[in-house]
């Protein structure tokens, strides 16, 4: 087991030479990244380059076969207790929202605090209402997800993740499934969250959002990190041809 004690306490995610295969398809080919507390990292790159797979290894929805991933001082292995500990510290927001359609909005938000954190129902509901307030939809608490618009659903999903009081938030293309007029309301919530000091890994192609909020941008292609740096550098002076090409296609 690698020694994790001498790691600077500021570094909340450490990936060292992470590899992953789907059968014989080599999807992550040596990813090394370190993320500091409170940092907002935007990950972008062509479709199929392994962005989703990478952020899913951080809460072990996918396992990696080689290299180390250390999250909040805990190394990710097959140990179930480690995995559950990490998952309750790391929130995740999906492209397809993945709200629980059989539960009311409020129950979606209180579910994990009640069952994982073992909070009393009243406390969980009070905090859930605060969070729904923060994402701007307290009046929807008693509705079912199916009765909400896409933008509202995604904001509930964010509130649901925040209810566990995570240290890290992962976002996998949170606005890609939304109609254009709803993208802003979700990005606004994410901006506020970034402003509050949350550590965030965001896979997105919303470049205006990245320019405004990101501390660092990482360009993925074919399972490797091609280039990374602060937004000004990526947008004004990209070093690699592949980055230039990709940016010219999406901007």
């Amino acid at each position, binding site marked *: 087991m690698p020694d994790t004690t001498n790691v600077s306490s500021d570094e909340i995610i450490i990936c060292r030479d992470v590899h992953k295969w789907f059968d014989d398809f080599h999807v992550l080919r040596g990813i090394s990244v370190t993320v500091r507390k409170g940092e907002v990292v935007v990950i972008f790159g062509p479709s199929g380059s392994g962005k989703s797979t990478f952020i899913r290894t951080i*809460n072990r*929805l996918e396992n990696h076969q080689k290299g180390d991933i250390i999250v909040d001082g805990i190394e990710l292995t097959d140990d179930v207790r480690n995995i*559950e500990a990490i*998952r*309750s510290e*790391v*929130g*995740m927001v*999906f492209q*397809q929202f*993945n*709200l*629980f*359609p*059989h*539960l009311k909005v409020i129950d979606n938000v209180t*579910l*994990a605090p009640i*069952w*994982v954190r073992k909070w009393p129902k009243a406390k969980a509901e009070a905090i859930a209402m605060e969070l729904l307030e923060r994402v701007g939809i307290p009046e929807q608490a008693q509705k*079912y*997800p*199916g009765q909400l618009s896409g933008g509202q659903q995604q904001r509930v*999903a964010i509130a*649901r*993740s925040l209810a*566990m009081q995570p240290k890290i938030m992962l976002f996998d293309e949170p606005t890609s499934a939304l109609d254009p007029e709803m993208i802003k309301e979700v990005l606004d919530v994410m901006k506020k969250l970034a402003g509050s000091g949350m550590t965030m890994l965001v896979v997105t192609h919303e470049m205006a959002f990245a320019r405004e909020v990101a501390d660092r941008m990482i360009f993925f292609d074919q399972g490797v990190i091609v280039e990374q740096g602060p937004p000004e550098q990526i947008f004004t002076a990209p070093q690699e041809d592949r980055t230039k090409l990709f940016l010219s296609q999406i901007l």
Partner: protein
Amino acid sequence: MSIATDIVIGPPDRPGAVLWLKKNLFSSWLNTLLTILSTAVIAFVVVGLGRWILFNADWSPVVQNLRLFAVGPYPVEQMWRIWAIVYMVSFLMGVSGGRWRGSVQTFALAMALAYTVLAILPISLEYLPLASRLRLLGNVLAAGLGYLLGRRVAIKGRWLALAWALSFALTLLLLGGLRNAAVAPYLPFVESGRWGGLLLTFLLALVGIVASFPIGVLLALGRQSSLPVVKGMCIIFIETVRGVPLVTILFMTSILLPLFLPPEVRIDRVLRAMLGMTLFAAAYMAENVRGGLQSIPSGQVEAAKAMGLNGWQTMLLIVLPQALRVVIPAIVGQFIALFMDTTLAIIVGLLELLAIGRAIINSNPQWLLLDMEVYGFIALIFWVFTFSMAYASRRIETAVGLGKR
């Protein structure tokens, strides 16, 4: 009356009705022809059936044997226990109707109506004595009182469900009595061979439904297990049972099972039939539930895991509730089939409703040719209950549809 002036008087009904008829039944010459033809067929059947029911049929084997149809050879001097059970169910139905309203209320109402009709049925007091009629009306009263209680007092749904579960246990206790010498004088043992008629049909169906549901869910979960032994055993059980007719299973549990068991272990005859029906229903239930489990998108499981829920919590809180919702129609369909399959218990010598009917026909030479009446009556009883189950299923579907995507 100033209010009356506010009411907008709509167009008179008749033009609307005529328009409706024209639009739906006579919109083209083909539709007109179909309307006339089907009306003729319906009229022919209804008139013929009505004439037979009212004038030609001889209902004496039905009318003279109401008690046999209801409970079979249950000892007459112990009939008070049956009435106690009926009172209990009537009262609970009333409370449930008042508490839950909606279709439960409809059912409670239908039940009260059926009791009332039965109580005033124009047949000889010799066959439906005054005491029984009064008891039926007493049940209407019990249901009414229960209804008022359900409306007035805020009873938790959970407690009411618990009361139903307890009433089921109490029913079995009352029916069977106890072997214990101390209580035997008050509640003597009635061996299950003497349970019969509609009572036994209900018991077989109810036990089959109640027991096969959890077993079926467990089998479905086991079939998805990552442990090869568990998975293999579930698959073997499910596929074996599904590959064999119910009759065979009933024979196995009724006749072969006792041969394998040590002689001091004696399982009651009715219990063996219940076991067979439950195992049979559980295998089909498992396949229904599996269909539901597979219909849940993987994103649901991922979201649950990402929040830190463990495997059991994910299954019980997220996947299973959604999966069961999807398969409600299939499950109710299966319950209806199970209800009708109880008639197969006749082949292992149980006197459920159909067997009682047969016994009655054979009991009197004059009734030998009245099988139409007897089987028609039994068919009506089955229809009433299967129709109710199908109706309940539709209501449940719309009620849970609220949470759909």
